[in-house]
């Protein structure tokens, strides 16, 4: 009987079976990592993601600076009657003067602007009539629609705090949604029959309701039922998104496990007496999990986008507190823009466009999403042998 001419490593010092299997598995991951490393974009994405992780930790430890007017207004939402005496947020009216870059300031409380764009003042804090000095990212003007008075918030502080909420929400939602979808999808794909029918019809239903709408409905119902505190709201949002999210994963996993189910190795396992539970555990799920990884990493990026969209259409995600997520900050920033456009355009009166309110949260969302996409794309290529060229 001929022996294969495979390069057999010389039987080294007897290592434990467990250790060897781990070595082998590790070599698998090294292989994936090898292909991932080849992919520049993926590496860039990974780098940015690491930065975000750092920001997350920083955000947890960060506490907003002392009791400036900004913090004062930040601390009480728009619940407190604004007529309360001593509230610097009252009666604010952004009448300011601007002057082109480089020329001499005509007076106090005037801001130099890029030549040609008299409306673009640099990031600055506006308090009642006076300037409180520069802050990173300047201030945020809370739009009229959302409360009955303009307030000033420290965009920087909000961003840092918002990072925590946003990332927490994204990861939580994707993790729970994916795992539940994985379970259900695997079951329905493997057993088929009426189980499959039921699960798939349910996914049909949920997939055909536009996600934002469903999320908002759930949150609103929760609100009216009386879940109003900040934590309640956080969990409520998470729950709403999970309701929206699991069917997607169920679909993916199902289609995968339909393929796996027909594989010969499953049949072989069954032929030697394996029960459904074991086959699901050992064969179906492990073999259909990779696309889920990819989809998960994609979705982590897309949840902040959806949050932003929801916040933007004017739905207040975090009413009681003003430590929202990126979307709400950006939305609050954008919401004032159109009116300001009009104002600036129609009346020649001096006005300003607080562009930084929109820009910085927007950039945060953008970079997070795009880095996640880069990474997910690289991951897909690394995990899919067909694409290894």
């Amino acid at each position, binding site marked *: *009987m*001929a*022996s*294969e001419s*495979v390069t*057999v*490593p010389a*039987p080294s010092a007897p290592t434990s*079976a467990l250790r*060897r*299997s781990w*070595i*082998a*598995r590790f070599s*698998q991951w090294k292989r994936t990592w090898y292909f991932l490393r080849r992919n520049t974009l993926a590496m860039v994405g990974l780098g940015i993601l690491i930065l975000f992780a750092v920001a997350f930790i920083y955000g947890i430890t960060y506490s907003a600076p002392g009791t400036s007017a900004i913090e004062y207004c930040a601390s009480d939402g728009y619940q407190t009657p604004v007529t309360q005496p001593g509230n610097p947020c009252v009666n604010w009216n952004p009448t300011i003067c601007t002057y082109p870059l480089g020329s001499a300031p005509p007076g106090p409380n005037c801001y130099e602007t890029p030549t040609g764009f008299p409306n673009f003042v640099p990031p600055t804090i506006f308090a009642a009539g006076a300037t409180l000095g520069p802050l990173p990212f300047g201030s945020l003007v809370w739009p009229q629609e959302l409360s009955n008075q303009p307030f000033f918030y420290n965009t920087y502080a909000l961003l840092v705090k918002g990072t925590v909420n946003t990332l927490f929400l994204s990861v939580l939602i994707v993790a729970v949604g994916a795992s539940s979808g994985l379970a259900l999808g695997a079951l329905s794909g493997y057993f088929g029959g009426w189980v499959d029918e039921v699960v798939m019809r349910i996914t049909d239903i949920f997939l055909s309701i536009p996600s934002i709408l469903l999320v908002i409905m759930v949150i609103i119902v929760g609100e009216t039922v009386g879940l109003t505190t900040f934590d309640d709201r956080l969990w409520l949002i998470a729950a709403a998104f999970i309701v929206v999210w699991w069917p997607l994963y169920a679909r993916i996993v199902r289609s995968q496990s339909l393929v796996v189910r027909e*594989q*010969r*190795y499953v*049949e*072989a*396992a*069954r*032929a*030697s*007496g*394996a029960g459904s539970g*074991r086959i699901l555990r*050992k*064969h179906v799920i*492990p*073999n259909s999990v990779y696309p889920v990884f990819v989809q998960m990493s994609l979705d982590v990026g897309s949840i902040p986008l959806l949050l932003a969209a929801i916040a933007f259409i004017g739905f207040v995600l975090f009413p009681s507190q003003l430590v929202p997520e990126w979307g709400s900050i950006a939305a609050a920033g954008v919401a004032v823009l159109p009116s300001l456009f009009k104002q600036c355009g129609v009346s020649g009166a001096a006005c300003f466009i607080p562009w930084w309110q929109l820009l910085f949260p927007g950039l945060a969302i953008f970079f997070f999403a795009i880095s996640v996409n880069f990474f997910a794309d690289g991951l897909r290529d690394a995990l899919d042998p067909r694409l290894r060229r």
Partner: protein
Amino acid sequence: MAGTPMSEGTGSTESGPVLLDVRNLRKYFPIRGGLFSARIGNVRAVDGVSFRIHEGETVGLVGESGCGKTTVGRLLLRIIDATSGHVFYRPTPEASARIEQDLRELAPFSGPDGEGAPLPATAQQALEELDGIADEFSLYRKSRHEMRELRARLQVVFQDPFSSLSPRLLIRDVIGEPLEIQHVGTRQERIERVQQLLQEVGLSPEHAWRFPHEFSGGQRQRICIARALALRPEFIVLDEPTSALDVSVQAQVLGILQKLQQDYRLSYLFISHHLSVVRAVSDRVVVMYLGRVVEQALTDELFGRPLHPYTQALLSAIPIPDPKLHRERIILSGDVPSPAAPPSGCHFHTRCPAVMPICSKVDPPLLENRPGHWVACHLYSPPEVLGSFEGAALPEGSMEVSGASVPGTATASAAGPRLAP
């Protein structure tokens, strides 16, 4: 289904006791369609198949694609359940004797035409008795628990070595899986067993810590064999084990299989469309066409003197790696009909070179033409069968067809029948 092999003739006398006794096995897959995807028909994948497998023998199951040979394999392992019929596991001699009798009793009533007709008393009790025997021996009557134990003794090796190993598992886990499922031994013992198995199929113990994608087709197939052997089974279904491999590697694998058969005293059901390979390895051959057995005999008998026109055509179609060899082919016209709508009467009559009027009307019974040589063809049907159809004279065609000589006849008869170890 009219006749079933009543005794294995010369074959059975020498070979060991019956391991598996397949009786009138049927498997119909529904065809769904129409507005409400109702069952609008059946694919008759397996349509009344009967044969026996003795201890330590290799039965070859040949036929073209779509003739249901793979389905038979899966039915034997009860990976899927049969529509009707039974697979008796180790029936006692008297039990099989009873089965013979009862089936003979029932023969006139069974089959598609006999449905629904009220049975006479004798047949009725025969049926009940058969039921009793089935309760005792049939795989399809085993409880989940019994089945679980039986599975340790009945194993399978598949055609495609690439889809039959889970890419996520280490070879150690692949081969160890059956042991794990059946809770055999401790973790350490299992690992040792796996390494031993690897050596037995000619791989190195070190390979236990690799992943399937690191192996070539031949090596993968060996791993599959090792997995099948893990539980020391009595019987292995080999479903086209070599048709995905190169010839040189194929020889290796066949060698291993034969060696293991002696070591473990295994019985094989060797499913293949490659007749040369079947001839090389099997003791008895069953030829299937469209879900039915058309011919069954000892290997050399069958290859030496094929009786059924289909078998003859099949043999004559095999290319032989010898340009000097001269022989005139029987080229069959047309394709294999769809098993969803098999032709009436003899399924083969649409392509048969020696077709007679009766063929399209009456199912030819599977009858013992020579000791141990069973054939289902009206050319060899006894007068009483043909008598049922007017104008029943043995036509000219039959002579030259049955006489059509195929290469290898001389050598085969010289070699004499090979018998099971």
